[in-house]
């Protein structure tokens, strides 16, 4: 279907917007940022749909559509699902600055058992108690989410490239069955150049030295009865340097960068897997999809 679209040939990227009949007939397509051009394409697609004979609108009779085994199958239903927003910070370090460029987003997944790791383990819950988060949880954020994808697709960090990163979770208060937590930490990841994560879809053709260093502060509320977070907010502020092939950086000049993590809404679109799910340090996500 896509081969008959705006690229008019097989092979290569298929990025774009397509209007199609469920039976597979392409009605219109475009790859554009201009909303007016996109609107015209949608209108053209709808007009083609209205002209399309009924037998071409649907899937062939008897055809069973196998939706396959998708990453979303591992969605941690009773875990912690966050949405992240990443964007460059103003050069003058003033959060009131009106200058705001592009931004990007992703999802973060933690399993139900990993969620419990945010709480003190070997002591009764009470104000002042807390713990350092286990290395795998910190690594998940540092390797796969504290990355420079503000302007485009980037690369994750290998486990060996995480340095001196830690996050502390401390109980501020316990009220009924709710635990009020504060989070604080520092992270540092630096890739000197050689790709350390083997052969996969992300393996670059050349070396991309890069790094990110952040400070984090956050707060969360945990429901002991539901064993789930009812609130979770984390801000990370720091600096990035280097670049990758398509992350939209012209050169390796350092710059300030920020991240905000929040509970993801409960919508189908928020069940999309994290960008680097195929490399996630999570044994509960089967690797082959």
């Amino acid at each position, binding site marked *: 279907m896509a081969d008959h679209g705006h690229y008019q040939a097989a092979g290569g990227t*298929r*990025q774009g*917007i*397509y*209007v*199609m*009949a*469920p*039976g597979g007939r392409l*009605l219109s397509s475009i*790859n554009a940022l201009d909303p007016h051009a996109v609107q015209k394409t*949608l209108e053209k*697609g*709808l007009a083609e*749909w209205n002209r399309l004979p009924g037998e071409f*609108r649907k899937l062939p009779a008897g055809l069973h*559509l196998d*939706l*396959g085994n*998708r990453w*979303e199958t591992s969605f941690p239903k009773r875990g912690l699902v966050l*949405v992240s*927003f*990443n*964007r460059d910070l103003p050069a003058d*370090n003033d*959060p*009131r*600055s009106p200058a705001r460029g592009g*931004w990007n*987003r*992703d*999802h973060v997944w933690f399993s139900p058992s990993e969620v419990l790791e945010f709480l*003190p383990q070997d002591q009764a819950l009470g104000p*002042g108690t*807390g713990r*350092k988060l286990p290395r795998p949880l910190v690594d998940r954020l540092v390797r796969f989410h504290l990355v420079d994808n503000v302007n*485009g*697709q*980037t690369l994750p960090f290998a486990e060996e490239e995480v340095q001196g990163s830690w996050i*502390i979770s*401390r109980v501020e208060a316990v009220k009924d069955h709710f635990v009020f937590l*504060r989070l*604080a930490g*520092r992270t540092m990841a630096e890739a000197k150049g050689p790709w350390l994560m083997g052969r996969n879809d992300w393996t670059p053709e050349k070396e991309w030295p890069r790094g990110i260093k952040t*400070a984090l*502060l956050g707060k969360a509320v945990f429901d002991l009865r539901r064993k789930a977070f009812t609130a979770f907010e984390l*801000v990370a*502020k720091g*600096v990035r340097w280097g670049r990758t092939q398509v992350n939209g950086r012209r050169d390796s*000049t*350092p710059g*300030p960068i*920020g991240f905000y993590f929040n509970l993801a809404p409960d919508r*189908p*679109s*928020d069940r*999309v897997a*994290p*960008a680097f799910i195929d490399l996630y340090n999570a044994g509960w996500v089967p690797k082959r999809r």
Partner: protein
Amino acid sequence: MIRTLFATTLGLLAFPLGGLKTAQDKPLVLQEDLSWNNWTAWKHFLVPSSADRIFEKIPWIPSFGAGILQAQKQGMPLLLWVMNGHPLGCT
């Protein structure tokens, strides 16, 4: 120990980055800590506006196959958005 670690954390959140230089060859140094005093301000800076997130109002279906089945069920054409960096969070 956690109390001590936490008490010193805020002081450690300002870190000089003298080894990194901007294009003007000036050291890149954070002007201030990330602290609870400015946390909300930075949060508001980072969160996209409602206008920027208006695409979220579309009831996106997170898989192509599921979209085909729903379009077939509803007797409607399907809008398919394909790219890295698309609205559903795949960067």
